């Protein structure tokens, strides 16, 4: 469950942020979220986030695409109406397979790429007209914001965050 009160600690440097994350983790505080203007290399590892499984999803989508291509062309070219087109052998799929490979390849890539992107949008909850979630517009420019849950240890936590080099610490009540 999300804490009702959180602290927003704002940093101005990604190196300071990385050290702060390690320190806060070491003190066993729960980091709700971190907002950064650009990808910070190694931040996910420092936060202890689980690795993404989107590559696995993409592989499976690719398999689907390959299957769609094979089933589609087998039905159209071999089963439904096996015409003689320029002497190409349409007796079985395998005999005319080389001619189908470009389509098999493209559909594999098409499915793998597009479904992976859509999966990414769904999982990260992104769509047009979606209300922006960042708590402070400066985090899209040059500030980094760490959101830490407060469980009645407010003063201790703000001391810790000050020590880590936060330039600004705000207590936010999330219940409204």
């Amino acid at each position, binding site marked *: 469950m999300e804490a009702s009160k959180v602290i927003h600690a704002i940093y101005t440097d990604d190196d300071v942020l990385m050290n702060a994350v390690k320190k806060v983790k070491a003190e066993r505080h729960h980091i709700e979220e971190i907002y950064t203007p650009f990808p910070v290399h190694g931040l996910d590892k420092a936060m202890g986030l689980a690795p993404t499984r989107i*590559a696995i999803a993409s*592989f499976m989508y690719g398999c689907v695409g390959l299957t769609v291509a094979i089933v589609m062309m087998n039905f159209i070219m071999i089963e439904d109406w096996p015409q003689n087109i320029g*002497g190409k052998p349409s007796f079985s799929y395998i005999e005319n397979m*080389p*001619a189908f*490979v470009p389509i098999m390849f493209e559909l594999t890539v098409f499915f793998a790429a597009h479904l992976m992107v859509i999966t990414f949008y769904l999982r990260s909850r992104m769509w047009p007209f979606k209300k922006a979630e960042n708590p402070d517009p400066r985090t899209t420019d040059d500030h980094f914001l760490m959101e830490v849950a407060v469980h009645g240890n407010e003063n201790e936590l703000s001391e810790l965050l000050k020590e880590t080099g936060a330039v600004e610490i705000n207590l936010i009540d999330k219940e409204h």
Partner: protein
Amino acid sequence: MYTFSSKLKIFSIVLIILGALGVAYGFMSSHKSLDEVKEMIAHEEAGHHGGSHDTETKAHVVAGVEDHSDNAHKANAHDALADAHSDAEAHHGDEHAEHVLHQIHNRPYAALYVAAFFFFMIALGALAFYGIQWAAQAGWSPVLFRVMEGITAYVLPGGLIVLLVAFLAGDHIFVWMNPDMVDPSNDKYDALVAGKESWLNRPWFFIRGLIFLGGWVLYRQFARKFSLAQDNADINDNRNFKKTFRISAAFLVFYIYTESMMSWDWIMSVDPHWFSTLFGWYVFASMFVSGITVIAMITMYLKSRGHLPFVNDSHLHDLAKFMFAISIFWTYLWFSQFMLIWYSNIPEEVTYFVTRFQDYQLPFLGMVAMNFVFPLLLLMNSDYKRIPWFVVMAGIVILCGHYIDVFNMIMPATVGDRWYIGIPEIGSVMLFAGLFIFVVFTALTKAPLLAKGNPFIKESEHFHY
């Protein structure tokens, strides 16, 4: 400094000796006279026709066009056909036996040539990779430079051996080297081969070969020299590095032209009636992926023995990524060449693949599985690319696959349907594998395994993916 472990040295010498015995056996057993071959063919045909043909077949053979009096009606189709064609076959039999005799004589030469070229192309592929790393100023690979330099030490001996085998084999491998084929008064005169005589003639072939080889070896010698000089240079003195950078760029230009011509000469000309424009790229992809695979395998071997403490699993990951990507690149070229010819089905081009499909079905399709499907599935996962034994297994499959690739390029033109992977082939592979290991690991002992003077070496040591 690395010392050549005595076990590996003995292993390589044993390989050379066993391989040489196998090659010698291949040459001895291929010495057959025409009569022996005829007997063999008769024997094979008897074995083929008898026994398995239990089911009765009826044949209605029309001997003449108008006159039906002597039409043969026999219960067994083969006998009926044999009767009708007995005269023609008697004459044809001699020609056929001679053809088979040539194929049998060619086999040990072709086996030797395939293996010699395969190991040479590994070294040349590694040299191209090395040149690219320099020209691209790659930050990850300098810790592997000494391994690559060790492998490329085989370019000179390996290239000379390929040329020597070609010289000794002559028309056993390159039919156009037979002077009868370009002599208009001769029975064997071939107008198509004669038309290519200005390019495909013996002296020019070997002069070209030596020019190609000379350029590659020259680059290799100087790159190695500057690389060693950079080790002893002052910390801010990067002159040797810059020199290697420049000659690498020049070498890559020279290489891509000469490699293409080398592939026409050394490989494509075994089928002098056939031609393909992307053949040079196709051979390049094959040698490039084999070279990278061997770099990865030797790196892992040396690391497992504790000689490369500065190589981490991110370097391995990068090499495995290259193995994966270039395997797919090879498949792309293989398929592009095959599919364009299959699709248009022009008789003068398509015979190349018809023979491969009819007589070499298993190696021809098997190599696609080994060079594409295996690496694709094994090396796709990024975690697997960091596991040494996994990469070694994939590497072995890739190397076997590319041996078969070279086998498929040479054998159909030399031994035709009389191919087999037996003692001559395995012996040749062992001979050159032993020689390759011996040359490469001897070269590795000549310099420290860390190119410490390279300006990118710090970055490379801390490389992390």
